């Protein structure tokens, strides 16, 4: 009996509460609030994406600048293979991993002496040392002080302040190609010719 009365009471409340109509003036007020909030949310969303974009771009810029720092060469060391006999007029080509200045063209002033050791692990040291300043200079008349005529089966390495650059064999390259390659940014290969 008690449950039945409760059910009647609940049904009555349910029916009445379902018939509730909101006031007419309320709609205009809260709809304006809704539109205003929506605009603010849209602005926030745009700001968020803009901020994210700026962050990503600045991160990329940082990574790019960090990994593309210029490397100054301090000396060049040439280490030939066992079967190598260095002579004058020998081509030595090298490969630089990365970091060489865009306009780098190697000029070795003066003669390069070949120092042979007893165990035939000869090394070539530049005497006098390679002029580092000249590494970034271009030859005005398009010719290098280094001259060569024949190929060599040798390898060399270029040591810099913070990296060692391997110099390995390569095909005979004409003198003009030194400067062509040097104009490319981040070119990995340059050639020492003498």
């Amino acid at each position, binding site marked *: 009996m008690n449950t039945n*009365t409760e059910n*009647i*009471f609940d049904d*009555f409340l349910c029916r009445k*509460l*379902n018939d509730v109509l909101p006031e007419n003036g309320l*709609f205009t007020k*809260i709809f304006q609030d*809704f539109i205003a909030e929506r605009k603010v949310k849209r602005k926030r969303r745009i700001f968020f994406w803009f901020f994210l974009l700026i962050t990503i771009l600045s991160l990329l810029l940082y990574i790019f600048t960090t990994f593309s720092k210029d490397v100054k060469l301090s000396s060049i060391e040439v280490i030939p293979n066992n079967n190598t006999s260095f002579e004058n007029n020998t081509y030595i080509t090298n490969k630089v991993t990365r970091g060489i200045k865009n306009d780098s063209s190697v000029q070795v002033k003066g003669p390069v002496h070949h120092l042979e050791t007893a165990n035939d692990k000869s090394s070539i040291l530049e005497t006098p040392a390679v002029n580092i300043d000249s590494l970034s200079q271009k030859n005005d008349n398009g010719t290098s002080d280094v001259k060569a005529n024949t190929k060599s089966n040798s390898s060399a390495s270029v040591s810099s302040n913070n990296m060692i650059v391997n110099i390995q064999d390569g095909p005979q390259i004409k003198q003009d190609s030194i400067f062509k390659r040097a104009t490319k940014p981040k070119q990995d290969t340059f050639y020492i010719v003498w």
Partner: protein
Amino acid sequence: MENRIDIHIKGCLANNLKSQEWLYRYCFERLMKVCLRYHSNEIDASSSFNKSMHKVFGKLGQYRNDGHFLGWVHKIIVNTCLNELRSEIRNSAAEIKGVQMEEFTVAPDTYSNMSEKEILLCVQQLPSTARIVFNLYVMENYNHAEVGKLLNISEGTSKWHLNQARALLKQKLIQMNIKQGYANEY
């Protein structure tokens, strides 16, 4: 009508302001009462309704025509209201340790002449947990186990809150009836 809703849903997805206003009004006229009976005042109810509508417009692309649109929006509104009132439920957990509510019956003649707004006012004046349990049990047809799970309270606690809500509503309706009687006499 459903076809019209579908047209306006597509309009809303295309950022058409008129469609947004139509859909908002459509939901407002039918579902604002849900927020009004869950909250104790009109301001909170409006805020809750707007939050719900932001969710509705944000997830309108996810709506599939596999059910009634109003049912979908109704569920979002109820969930939003419950999320907003959850902190009040925790705070009022100590209510149950109070005095046991007396159960009494009221003749239907006592409250039959009450208007919808008066009854809504009575519901809004209930303690928050009792109001939520009453809404979930009586209006949304949940059972006590489901209510307890939703509000993270025991089944017995849910029953206690429902009894409290009923008793308080009856008291308020009697008081209102008496006031109206006095007003009619003078």
